[in-house]
């Protein structure tokens, strides 16, 4: 019986001394989700359909990095810059036309950054509120903001791009 009490007290002390910083188990990057669509004529008028891009590429205009997406992709995600209130990207729907400027569109997202505390384990990150969007119309028809709050909710689509 005394041994059990001893084990109990040792366990309680060990528990009280265990104060390691918890590991961060949630994503710290906040992604903006985009979907590509097209209008299709139907007997009732026109309907929105997914637009599967053939061999899409995109990149940030102030960076040399190029992101190659899966063929026939209609959804993709990107990271907004936490260093500025706008992020510009170029988008090519078919990588074989990358040298043709008429097949390359530029989209500029305007937003406000909002500092968000995740936890003591993960520290801070930034959330964004989209305030506007500018775009070229070479291949694009229009760009619409569906949800202006870019947060850690990965299930929301924020922007619709119409071809």
């Amino acid at each position: 019986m005394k041994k059990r009490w001893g084990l109990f007290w040792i366990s309680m002390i060990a528990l009280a001394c265990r104060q390691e910083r918890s590991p961060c188990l949630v994503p710290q990057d906040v992604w903006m989700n985009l979907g590509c669509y097209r209008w299709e004529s139907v007997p009732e008028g026109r309907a929105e359909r997914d637009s599967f891009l053939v061999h899409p590429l995109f990149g940030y205009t102030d960076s040399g990095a190029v992101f190659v997406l899966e063929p026939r992709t209609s959804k993709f995600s990107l990271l907004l810059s936490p260093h500025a209130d706008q992020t510009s990207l170029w988008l090519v729907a078919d990588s074989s036309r990358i040298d043709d400027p008429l097949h390359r569109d530029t989209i500029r997202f305007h937003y406000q950054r909002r500092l968000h505390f995740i936890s003591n384990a993960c520290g801070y990150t930034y959330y964004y509120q989209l305030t506007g969007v500018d775009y070229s119309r070479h291949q694009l028809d229009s760009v619409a903001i569906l949800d202006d709050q870019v947060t850690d909710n990965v299930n929301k689509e924020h922007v619709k791009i119409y071809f």
Partner: protein
Amino acid sequence: MLRSIFSGLLCLLPLLVGAQQVSDSAIGSTAPSPLPDSGSAAPPSVRWHQLRAEIDFLSPILARAAEYPSLPRKTHWGFSVDYYWRNDLYAVMEGGTGSAQVRYDDLQYDSRNLFFRCGFQKGLFSRTGDQDWDLGFLGIRYGMARTSLSEAWFRTDHYFWGPRFGTQEARTVWLHWVELTGGMRMRLWKGISCGWNLRMKLLANGNSVQELPPAFVAGYGAADRNSAFEMNFYLGYALTWSKKVRERNEE
């Protein structure tokens, strides 16, 4: 090293508890006091009071013992005062102060806080005699803490865009919580007593500290969680006195 010393000391407590239980049972075997005759004038009875002051002796040591390079450096001082009212019911007031220095790679700030708790606790077992002040109890507390946070430096890491640095301005936040507690106290020698409290706390206003919940608030714990557990070990001194009261005799 410190852990082994504390665990060694605390392993002795159950032995003391066992000894106390033996003495309690001895008290319990004495003949019960005769009941006053109903209908006659009640003699003056003696009502005992106790005022006990205690310090939380282990938290300051544990706060120091748990210092690792990446963890908050902490201080934690606490005290408790309880007063025996009647029918195994105690009024309790607790307070203290503490601080923390958070020095993570991506987050650095200092915090200092004062805390105050009040509530009551009820003895689980009836007293076996006037001088039986050993106690196992359950209680409830309301707690509040005023925490001053220094300007916080932070770094956010981004997969593509690289790190960004910034600061958050200094501010003061209030925390409010309720807690359920249980524990025990036992007399060691004359008025000196020791014991422990196990506390389960529920934060009432966690939303008000979402911008930067303090990593450590003495009296509560980590403020980025809506619930917290804590164990305190107390050493105290109790004053007891008696007062004659003439109770009204009820027919």
